[in-house]
C-alpha cells in the first residue's frame, strides 16, 4: 500500500497542531461556535445527538495491521471501546470529548491517518472497490488511481469551498462493487480495443433526496488525461453548480438541469485548457504510486488442508460458501469478515475484534485489510491453506458469521440512535430483521439479497439501491418506514421503486417477512434471486404481500 512521504506527514502533523490551537481558542472563548464549527468540520468532528462524533478517513478502505491496531487503541483510550465502519469506507467514533480530539488526531497522524476532508463542501475521501488488487475479475487495481486523486484533491485550494460535498469512487472491474454510478464522479478502469488502459467517466450520480444514476461523460479517457479531465469537471461544476439552494447544489442537479451533452461540451472545452497546464509530472507520480500497490509476494503451498476442512466441517463449508470470493491467484481467496453478527449493530467492531483482525492480517493476509462500503472488513489476500485457522480465530470473537450477501448482511446508517440529521432509527430495524430471519433459519434458502436502510432522506444507508430499501421518516412525530424495491448498486445500477404507504416501527419487520415469503412462493426456483424475481414480475405481487388489505378490498 501507499506509504506517506515527508510531504504527506508534515501536512497532517501541521493540521493536528492547527486544530489543537483552534480547540484551545474555542474552549477559552476566543472563538464562538459559529466560528469554530467550520473548522471542526474540516477535521471530521461533528456534534451529534448524544455526543461529538469523529469521522476518520480510510482512503479507498485500505488499512494495514498497524493502522487497525491504532484504531483499536483510540477506541479504548478516548472512546467507548468500539468504532463504527461506515458506508463510505470510513470509521466513526461516537463518543469523543472535544478536549481529547487533538490527541486522537495526533494518534492517527502517528500512523499516517487523519480526519481531513471527511466533512464539508470539498472533495471527500475517495472510495474504491474493496476487492481492489485481489479480485479475479479486475482489469487493474483501482487504488493507484484513487491515491492519485487523493493527492490531487487534498487541500486543493480551488476545490476547498465547493457548492456542496463531492464524492469520487473508482472500480477496476466490470462488476461494480464500488457503486460508481451513485457518485458525483465514478471512474471505471477499462481496456479499449487497442489494448490501452484508460477510464470510463460517469458523472452526476447520487442518492439523497433526488436519487440519480450517473451518466456516461466519456466512454474512454486516456490514463494520462485523468487529472486535467477531473479538474475540468470540477471547474464546470464550480461555475455552473447552484449555490442558491443546498438541496439543488450537487453535481447530479447540475447535470440534470443542463443536460449531459451541455456538460460534456463544457468539460471538453475546459479540458483542452487544463491539459496544457499538466506537464506530465502527475504520470511520474502515478508510476511511483502504482509501484506501492504492487501485488504481495504470494506464497506457494498446497491447499489440501482447506479442501479437507470444506469436506469435513459443515460450519466451515457454510462460511466458505458465503464469505469467500475468487482471488486472481487460484491458490488464494478473498475473505470477507462479517461485521453483521445477527442482532448486532451493522459496522460496529470492538477494539478486541479490531486487534484480532489486525493480527490475522499480519499473520496470514500480507498485512492488508479493507473496509467495504457494505460495512464489513476484508482480508484481500489469503492463501487457502490459512483459511481454516482464520475461521477458528474469528469464531472466538464473534466474527465468523456466514452471511455475506445474505438478508442479514444489511447496510444501515447510524440513524436516530446517533445522528443529528436522522428522522428515524435504522440500526434496530436491521438488528430485528437479522434476528428474525436467523430464528426462521431461512436466510440461506432466501439467498442473495441486499437490504439497505437509511434513517433519513440523505440516504447514507443507500436505500435507493437496495434490492429492498427501507427509508425511515418522521411522520407527524412517529417513526414511519417506506419500502422501495428493485434497487441495484452494481454495474446495472437502478433506483428502487416505492412500494406504497409506510409502516410503523412495529409493522416494518413483519412487512419484510411477508415480502420474503411472497418471494419464496413466486420465484421460479431456488436459483432465481429476489432481484431477478422482482425484475421478472414487477412490483405487483410484492405489493399484494405488503398490503394484504388491498387484495381483500379488491375481492
Amino acid at each position: 500500500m501507499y506509504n506517506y512521504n515527508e510531504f504527506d506527514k508534515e501536512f497532517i502533523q501541521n493540521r493536528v497542531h492547527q486544530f489543537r490551537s483552534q480547540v484551545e481558542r474555542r474552549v477559552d472563548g476566543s472563538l464562538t461556535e459559529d466560528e469554530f464549527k467550520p473548522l471542526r468540520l474540516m477535521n471530521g468532528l461533528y456534534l451529534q445527538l448524544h455526543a461529538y462524533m469523529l469521522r476518520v478517513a480510510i482512503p479507498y478502505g485500505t488499512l494495514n495491521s498497524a493502522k487497525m491496531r491504532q484504531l483499536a487503541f483510540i477506541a479504548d483510550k478516548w472512546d467507548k471501546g468500539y468504532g463504527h465502519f461506515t458506508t463510505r469506507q470510513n470509521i466513526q467514533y461516537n463518543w469523543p470529548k472535544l478536549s481529547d480530539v487533538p490527541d486522537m488526531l495526533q494518534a492517527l497522524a502517528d500512523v499516517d491517518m487523519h480526519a481531513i476532508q471527511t466533512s464539508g463542501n470539498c472533495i471527500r475521501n475517495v472510495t474504491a472497490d474493496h476487492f481492489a488488487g485481489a479480485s479475479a475479475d479486475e482489469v487493474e487495481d483501482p487504488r493507484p488511481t484513487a491515491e492519485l486523486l487523493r493527492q490531487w484533491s487534498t487541500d486543493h485550494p480551488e476545490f476547498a469551498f465547493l457548492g456542496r460535498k463531492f464524492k469520487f469512487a473508482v472500480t477496476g472491474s466490470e462488476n461494480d462493487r464500488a457503486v460508481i454510478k451513485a457518485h458525483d464522479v465514478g471512474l471505471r478502469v477499462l481496456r479499449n480495443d487497442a489494448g490501452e488502459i484508460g477510464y470510463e467517466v460517469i458523472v452526476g450520480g447520487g442518492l439523497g433526496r433526488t436519487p440519480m444514476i450517473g451518466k456516461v461523460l466519456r466512454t474512454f479517457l486516456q490514463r494520462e488525461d485523468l487529472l486535467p479531465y477531473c479538474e475540468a469537471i470540477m471547474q464546470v461544476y464550480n461555475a455552473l453548480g447552484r449555490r442558491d439552494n443546498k438541496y439543488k447544489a450537487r453535481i447530479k442537479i447540475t447535470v440534470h438541469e443542463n443536460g449531459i451533452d451541455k456538460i460534456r461540451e463544457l468539460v471538453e472545452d475546459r479540458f483542452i485548457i487544463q491539459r496544457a497546464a499538466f506537464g506530465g509530472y502527475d504520470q511520474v507520480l502515478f508510476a511511483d504510486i502504482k509501484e506501492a500497490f504492487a501485488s504481495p509476494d504470494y506464497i506457494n503451498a498446497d491447499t489440501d488442508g482447506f479442501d479437507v476442512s470444506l469436506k469435513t466441517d459443515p460450519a466451515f463449508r457454510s462460511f466458505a460458501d458465503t464469505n469467500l470470493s475468487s482471488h486472481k491467484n487460484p491458490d488464494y481467496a478473498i475473505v470477507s469478515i462479517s461485521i453483521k453478527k445477527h442482532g448486532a449493530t451493522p459496522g460496529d467492531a470492538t477494539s478486541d475484534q479490531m486487534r484480532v483482525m489486525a493480527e490475522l492480517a499480519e499473520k496470514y493476509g500480507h498485512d492488508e485489510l479493507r473496509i467495504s462500503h457494505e460495512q464489513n472488513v476484508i482480508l484481500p489476500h489469503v492463501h487457502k491453506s490459512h483459511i481454516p485457522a482464520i475461521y477458528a480465530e474469528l469464531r472466538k470473537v464473534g466474527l465468523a458469521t456466514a452471511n455475506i450477501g445474505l438478508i442479514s448482511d444489511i447496510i444501515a446508517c447510524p440513524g436516530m440512535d446517533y445522528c443529528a440529521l436522522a428522522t428515524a432509527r435504522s440500526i434496530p430495524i436491521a438488528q430485528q430483521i437479522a434476528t428474525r430471519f436467523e430464528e426462521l433459519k431461512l436466510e440461506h434458502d432466501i439467498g442473495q439479497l441486499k437490504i439497505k436502510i437509511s434513517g433519513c432522506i440523505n440516504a447514507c444507508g443507500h436505500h435507493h439501491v437496495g434490492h429492498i430499501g427501507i427509508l425511515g421518516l418522521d411522520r407527524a412525530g412517529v417513526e414511519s418506514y417506506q419500502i422501495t424495491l428493485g434497487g441495484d448498486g452494481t454495474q446495472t445500477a437502478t433506483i428502487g421503486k416505492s412500494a406504497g404507504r409506510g409502516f410503523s416501527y412495529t409493522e416494518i419487520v413483519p412487512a419484510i417477512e411477508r415480502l420474503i415469503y411472497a418471494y419464496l412462493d413466486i420465484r421460479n426456483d431456488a436459483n432465481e434471486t429476489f432481484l431477478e424475481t422482482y425484475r421478472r414480475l414487477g412490483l405487483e405481487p410484492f405489493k399484494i404481500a405488503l398490503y394484504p388489505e388491498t387484495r381483500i378490498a379488491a375481492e
Partner: protein
Amino acid sequence: MVRAYTPKVLTANRLIEGDVVYYGHNGEWVLSHDDALFLEDEVQANDLLASANKQAALLVGAYLADAALENGKPIPTHFREDFRTRGPSNYAHGKQAEV
C-alpha cells in the same frame, strides 16, 4: 399564522463532553430530563435560550424542545427528544448505562 406556544424544556450539549444537558430549576445544567425546568411561559423560555446562547464556553447547540408534564415531571413529546434523554436504543450504552 402564528403557532400557539407549547411548553418546552431548554436543552443543549456540553461544550467539552458533548453530553445532553437540560436547564434545571436553580439555573444549573442537569443530565436528567426529570430535573429540567418545565417552561410554560414563552417569554421566559426565549429569555433563557438567549442567555444559554451566550454561555459559549460551557454549551453548544442550545434549543427549546417540546415537553409535557406527567406526574409532576417534564417528559419529551417527540421520540427524538426521548432518545436524547437516554442514549442509543441499539444496545444500552451512553447516558442510560452511565448516569
